[in-house]
């Protein structure tokens, strides 16, 4: 066991005394960057003793600088490295290497230094690094160890033997310094920029095997300043080095630097594409089914800590497909566990909703509904091709990783088909559902300072800007505030952007300085003001996707709503489609607003126009759909009889009928302050 702290101190001292003896001149060929580390840090071209000592003192006796100078001097004395070693690598090769990093064909860089305890250990670590698209540099006795284990070395194999001593590991840093100058816009001498680049952009990890000398420990530890994690298998103690097992050392390092392997192919015996999403599997085509009221079934996605789950692991608890009777209904639990540095608990329900899409992507798998109401089928054709329950798990694990590469580092899936175990697990799921509902229910517009925009529809409604708040979902009903927030975090340059709401201009109408500013910019200067809670004054623009249209009926001093499903004429004299054609396309039309169904149930609904008491008419089907929740909301707001006072096409088909009806029921809108 080596104590890093202790060795570090001694190592630094001996590097310092070695520096004192530097003499003569030295330089590398095939580079425009002199001694790249020294050059990047200070802007000084080091070729002799004077410059060496100058740079060493300017960098506060930095051990990377010392090692670079000592090695350059040694190389000048001993001549170039002989094969298989590369020694110092030329700029032209670095350019290609940088290309592969930007291009994504190499995911990151690794350095292995030291002496492996057994040839097999190093070989296994290298194999894993190769499989994960890392480019690995090797320095020291690890090189002959790999050769004797029969591992092929060279650029083609993504394993590059830098040199016979761990000291040659310094080339790893000079490569990164050059990549920073070539690709990262780092100017020589801009130390701060270099360190920021190395820490944030360079995806590099270091694995320190046993047997490093004190100077070599000082060199390796010096790389921490660049933000590279130093991992060991436990032969070093103290300091900031991280201990891991041979099995998880690569994964740990990659996770620490946020290096992600992207999944490109899904290993299952059926097609998987959005193209299959719309298909259905009818009873006669079905091999087995789960849920749908015929058997207990549910789905649950939860966040875990990185260490708690193994990426890609799929577990089936209970009988597999081959022991299920054709045509039968079976119990099923789909439990997905995810981990990721930027993953948050709030995202769970949004990601869980994707299970629906992903299962439907499968050529022979079908999914409807959500939570404990799910209904899943597998087709005869798919089962004949060899699809098993396990493959649904593989599909889900791969798709989640593919579609959320920035968010998720690890996904594991457990599928339970054992009836009793499904029921037991469902209890916990129900607790989680309830907890989530409570959290969303509690969210109010006043609780947050940031709303989200949606400009997805600007392709056909060029100046339309949706402003999404916790209480006012996008007018299409498809994107909630939380969805907007997540979409922004996953795709920061995308169609959902944060809007700082800023100082209040009109609290009742929901007009904010920040929102106005954003809307003006995002509507390309066309829309100056936007009130979130008013149909009458500066209402939000409309694209064409609104679930419902709210519009004023001046004759009755009220506001009516018509939903997309309603085909008839409304008391306004127009049908939904005529109205939609009038107000859509990105225009702001006072007196009209596109809204989602969910917004009708919010406390903010029509706040600027006198509240829900203005609501005089909506189609019977919409009324029925909202009834359970709306009745409760109206009771809470001391308007228990309002629900029945809202007319529909059966009680009032025309504006004349509506006037009579509202008078008969004494609708509160009639007594409100005039709308216009």
């Amino acid at each position, binding site marked *: 066991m080596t104590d890093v702290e202790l060795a570090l101190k001694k190592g630094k001292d001996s590097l310092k005394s070695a520096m004192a003896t530097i003499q003569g001149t030295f330089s590398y060929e095939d580079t425009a960057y002199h001694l790249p580390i020294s050059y990047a840090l200070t802007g000084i071209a080091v070729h002799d003793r004077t410059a060496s000592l100058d740079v060493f003192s300017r960098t506060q006796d930095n051990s990377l600088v010392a090692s670079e100078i000592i090695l350059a001097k040694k190389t000048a004395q001993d001549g170039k490295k002989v094969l298989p070693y590369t020694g110092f690598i030329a700029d032209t090769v670095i350019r290609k290497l*940088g290309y592969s990093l*930007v*291009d994504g064909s190499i995911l990151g860089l690794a350095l292995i230094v030291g002496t492996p305890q057994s040839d097999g250990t190093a070989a296994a670590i290298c194999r894993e690094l190769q499989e994960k698209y890392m480019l690995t540099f090797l320095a020291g006795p690890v090189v002959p160890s790999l050769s004797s284990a029969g591992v092929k070395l060279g650029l083609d194999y993504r394993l590059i033997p830098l040199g016979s001593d761990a000291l040659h590991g310094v080339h790893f840093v000079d490569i990164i310094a050059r990549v920073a100058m070539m690709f990262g816009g780092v100017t020589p001498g801009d130390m701060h920029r270099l360190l920021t680049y190395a820490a944030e952009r360079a995806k590099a990890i270091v694995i320190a095997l046993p047997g490093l000398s004190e100077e070599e420990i000082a060199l390796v530890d010096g790389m921490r300043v660049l933000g590279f994690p130093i991992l060991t298998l436990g032969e070093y103690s103290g300091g900031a080095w991280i201990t891991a097992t041979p099995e998880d050392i690569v994964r740990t390092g990659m996770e620490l630097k946020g290096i992600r392997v992207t999944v490109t192919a899904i290993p299952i015996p059926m097609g998987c594409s959005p193209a299959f999403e719309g298909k259905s599997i009818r009873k006669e085509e079905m091999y087995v089914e789960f849920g749908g009221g015929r058997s207990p079934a549910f789905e649950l996605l939860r966040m875990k800590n990185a260490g708690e789950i193994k990426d890609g692991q799929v577990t089936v608890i209970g009988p597999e497909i081959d022991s299920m009777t054709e045509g039968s209904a079976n119990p099923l639990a789909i439990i997905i566990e995810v981990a990721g540095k930027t993953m948050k608990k709030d995202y769970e329900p949004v990601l869980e909703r994707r299970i629906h899409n992903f299962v439907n992507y499968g050529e022979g798998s079908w999914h409807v509904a959500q939570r404990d109401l799910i209904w899943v089928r597998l087709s005869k054709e798919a089962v004949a091709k060899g699809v098993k329950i396990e493959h649904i798990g593989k599909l889900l694990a791969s798709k989640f990783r593919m579609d959320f590469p920035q968010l998720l580092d690890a996904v594991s899936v457990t599928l339970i088909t054992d009836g009793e175990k499904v029921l037991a697990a469902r209890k916990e799921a129900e607790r989680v559902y309830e907890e989530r509902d409570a959290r969303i229910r509690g969210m109010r517009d006043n609780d947050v300072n940031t709303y989200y925009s949606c400009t997805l529809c*600007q392709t056909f409604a060029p100046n339309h800007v949706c402003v999404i708040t916790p209480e006012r979902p996008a007018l299409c009903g498809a994107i909630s505030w939380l969805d907007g927030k997540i979409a922004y975090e996953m795709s920061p340059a995308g169609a959902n952007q944060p809007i700082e709401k800023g100082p209040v201009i009109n609290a009742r109408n929901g007009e904010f300085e920040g929102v106005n500013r954003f809307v003006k910019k995002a509507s*390309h200067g066309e829309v100056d003001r936007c009130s979130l809670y008013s149909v009458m004054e500066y209402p939000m623009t409309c694209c064409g996707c609104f679930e419902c249209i709210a519009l004023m009926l001046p004759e009755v001093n009220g506001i009516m709503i018509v939903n997309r499903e309603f085909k008839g004429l409304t008391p306004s004299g127009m049908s939904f489609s005529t109205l939609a054609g009038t107000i859509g396309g990105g225009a702001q039309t006072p007196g009209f607003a596109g809204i989602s169904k969910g917004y009708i149930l919010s406390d903010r609904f029509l706040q600027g126009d006198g509240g829900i008491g203005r609501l005089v008419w909506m189609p019977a089907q919409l009324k029925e759909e909202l009834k359970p929740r709306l009745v409760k909301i109206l009771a809470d707001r001391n308007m228990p009889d309002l629900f029945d006072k809202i007319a529909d096409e059966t009680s009032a088909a025309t504006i004349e009928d509506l006037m009579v009806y509202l008078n008969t029921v004494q609708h509160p809108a009639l007594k409100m302050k005039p709308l216009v």
Partner: protein
Amino acid sequence: MGFDLNFGWSGSIACVQLGATKSEGGTRRISYRIGGEKTLPFLEKIQGSSSPLITLEICDNPQYWSPIVTNYCGDMVHNSGEWAHAAETVYGADMVRLYLTSTRKRDFSDIASVGTTIETVLSGTGLPLIIEGSNEPKIDSEVFLKCGEAGQGERMLLGTAEAGRYRSIAAAAMAYDHSVIAQSPIDVNLAKQLNILLKEIGVSRDHIIIDPYTGSLGYGFEYSYSAMERIRFSALKGDADLAMPIICSAIDSLTVKEVRESEPAILDDIAVQWEFTTGLAAAIAGAEIICVRHPRTIPLLRKAFGSLTPGKIAGGEG
């Protein structure tokens, strides 16, 4: 004319260098700096403002090219060096855009030939080059690496980056100091998004040219025109992520029904008119680079641009 041409705009279009002369580290006879506008095209009577660059598109496997062009140009289409030479000396183009159509062959794997072709074209002409890489994501990485390498120092323009497919081109541009064509499907927001993605990966603003995607006249050009206008207005109003020069290539012009079905005697005339009218409209919407495939379109555009740009006839050079 009495119009007030002061719109109160605050933004200006980024300057992009295309081509590098010997003194600039390349081998081109001429290089251009496009962009820099502070208002709409053809409004300003400012000395030194250049009219759009007219680019002739050629390819290295004419099997994938319109027979209208290959018939007109003759045997030279089998030798991209000669074709590029003619583009400069006979047809009078400002730039040459080489499509590596040879890479479209099934299971193409002769990556080295890409380098050779580019070298041939570079020695065939002294004009700055635009290189259009592969059409196949699987070979992108190797093809663009080769393109970047072969034209190192020449400040070429590499195409075409799209939202799902920009890393290799960006890498080649960054590694070998070329510029990138960023194409989005006729949508101002997607154009901006792609520019931001390129910026994040490290491509600087003065190395990006926007391709808003150009539909041919009568076949969607009005959408392209509107997208170009909106991109340019946003840029002039100060949106730096959209303030890059625009390139337009209405490649469908030679295959539209009216051209395909015209009488053989007037086939060339119709094709040229179609390209000309689309290209002229694109220039008026703000495009700095207009690409055409029929050589006869070049003098027509040159004349039209000259009449719109007082005291200025040729492209970047005159």
